[in-house]
């Protein structure tokens, strides 16, 4: 090893040490736990090594429900929130007066506590003995019957969870996209105007490719964030998510460790590893697609 690379390793050491202790070691540990069958927390013993934990988790209806919920959440919220954020940012970029006011308003959810927001959503959506909730009052104007969004049918609860998630993740996306839009050199738009390009074509042929690196970043982090959803569900439906049928994969892991049915680190580890594999796969697919798209005319992601 020559001197300069030794120096480089020295500079990398603090970060590498922290990563090793708090990330690499736990991941390996979780992987080991997930293969230890019949692990006893009190005696720290186990009676075998194998795939039983995975088999148990994959046959657990609560886990399957959690996987289904998580996938529905991801598939709905990521495209909807990204598209909406793009539309709002584009609208913000095209107005001059009150722009900073609107920017502040759109950014407010980002600095608001998740649980507090959850409480507000409960007030809006929950049906109690005293009131049907604001949303139901509005539905009744249109002649739709009251729906119990918090304790009612699964689709209604899913709707609230998606609505809530989209509302929470949008501000950051708007912030990033507003910045990306502002960084596009206005000369491109001038050149396009001289050539008589329609507004729609300017947006799709010039603006979108120019900000595509930021969009890819938002989609990838959006997928990862949505797969890790947990606190949103808790803030809306309480801690017993299995009973509500609204558990997520992370929620399942937590329940297996500390919940009322908890005390099973092996099952929790197996579920966590499954989640890890899912997220890794989706992220790789995302990157592959964005590479291919950029090869056909998008901007390269560096």
């Amino acid at each position: 090893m020559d001197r300069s690379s030794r120096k480089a390793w020295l500079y990398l050491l603090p970060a590498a040490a922290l990563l090793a202790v708090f990330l690499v070691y736990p991941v390996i540990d979780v992987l080991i736990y997930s293969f230890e069958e019949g692990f006893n927390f009190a005696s720290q013993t186990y009676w075998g090594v194998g795939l039983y934990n995975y088999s148990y988790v994959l046959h657990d209806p609560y886990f399957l429900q959690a996987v289904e919920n998580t996938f529905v959440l991801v598939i709905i919220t990521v495209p909807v929130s990204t598209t909406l954020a793009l539309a709002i940012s584009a609208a913000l970029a095209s107005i001059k007066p009150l722009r900073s006011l609107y920017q502040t308003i759109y950014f407010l959810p980002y600095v608001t506590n998740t649980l507090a927001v959850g409480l507000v959503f409960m007030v809006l959506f929950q049906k109690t003995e005293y009131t049907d909730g604001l949303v139901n009052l509005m539905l009744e104007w249109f002649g739709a019957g009251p729906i119990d969004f918090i304790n009612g049918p699964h689709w209604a609860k899913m709707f609230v969870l998606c609505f809530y998630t989209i509302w929470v993740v949008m501000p950051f996306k708007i912030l990033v996209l507003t910045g990306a839009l502002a960084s596009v050199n206005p000369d491109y738009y001038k050149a396009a105007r001289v050539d008589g390009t329609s507004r729609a074509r300017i947006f799709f042929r010039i603006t979108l490719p120019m900000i595509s690196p930021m969009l890819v970043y938002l989609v990838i982090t959006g997928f990862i964030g949505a797969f890790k959803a947990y606190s949103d569900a808790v803030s809306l439906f309480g801690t017993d998510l299995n009973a509500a049928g609204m558990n997520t994969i992370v929620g399942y892991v937590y329940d297996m460790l500390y919940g009322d049915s908890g005390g099973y680190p092996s099952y929790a580890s197996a579920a966590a590893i499954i989640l890890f594999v899912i997220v890794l796969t989706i992220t790789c697919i995302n990157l592959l697609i964005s590479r291919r798209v950029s090869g056909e005319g998008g901007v390269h992601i560096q």
Partner: protein
Amino acid sequence: MNIKLEGLTKRFPARDKRSGGEVTAVDSLTFEVPDGTLVGLLGPSGCGKSTTLNMICGLEAPSEGRIFFGEEDVTAAPPELRGVGMVFQNYALYPHLTVLQNITFPLENLKGDKKLSKAEMRRRAVETARLVQIENLLDRKPRELSGGQQQRVAIARALVKTPRVLLLDEPLSNLDARLRLQTREEICKIQRATGITTVFVTHDQEEAMSISDRIVVMKDGVLMQQGEPQQVYDDPASLFVAKFLGTPPINVFAGQVKAGRLYLEGSGAPVLDTPGVPEGPVWAGIRPEGFVPDTAGPVCCGLNRVEVLGRDVSIVCTHPACQADTIRAIIPSRSLVNGADNTVHFALKPDKVFLFDRETETRLPFAPPGAES
């Protein structure tokens, strides 16, 4: 296409309320660009020349005044209906599109009966690319091209719609010196080949002088002078124009006119007969080539150094009345001046000396002695 600007004015609202007042970027500009000519809009930065170009293009709406393309009043027309092609200073090539896609882009916007087939678009794009000699780069992305090549792509994109008018904003300022010389000839050649009426903006007088059929000199939004480059150079209307044109720049002296003769301040002998100029203080501008070494000459300067430039010789010297630290004189041969001397004497060529009013800085014409005989 003949372009006519009539009293064109552009006022921008004040950026800062406290400083107050609007900014007048262009002030009642009136000039004409004859059909098929190459006209250079010339002036220091911030003089409103780019704003003028944007108004001709239709990107900015004038506050007052009118713009005609031929007989047609295009003042209120949007850019796409004017039939203009524009080359931006930074070229504004779409980085995610190939050269071919960039050149085809304007054609894809055509609608209705002007709509072209894919093959026709490609044919026109390739034809235009051939005109600017980039037909071998069609599959590249802009970032893979040199500055000069990018510029050609930008020109091709502006020309592909066969516009009535070609507008270039500082076309050469992003190129290095060698490329600049080559590209300005290229622009001139393309303009001659297509015969398209072209307006370009520059702050570089040499650039404007070398390729323009006519130049329009602006300062603070006001037209200072227009005409053929040589004519403007030989007959500047004001001290500003005289100072702005020419490399090396004109030498400006504080002088006095007494009884039809020019005296430089701080020296007793008259240096030139200037019949017809009223008495009083003046600025005397003397072109570098207006100095003739002459041991009996009336202008006595302190000699700093002699620079041999190959074709001619540049004398760097000083004079108390000169407004700059040094004077530059260009003479044809080295043997005329002894570099070891401390002083050098010059006579002046009357047609290279211009007098300007000390207050208004406008030209005070005089008939050069001998002109009438």
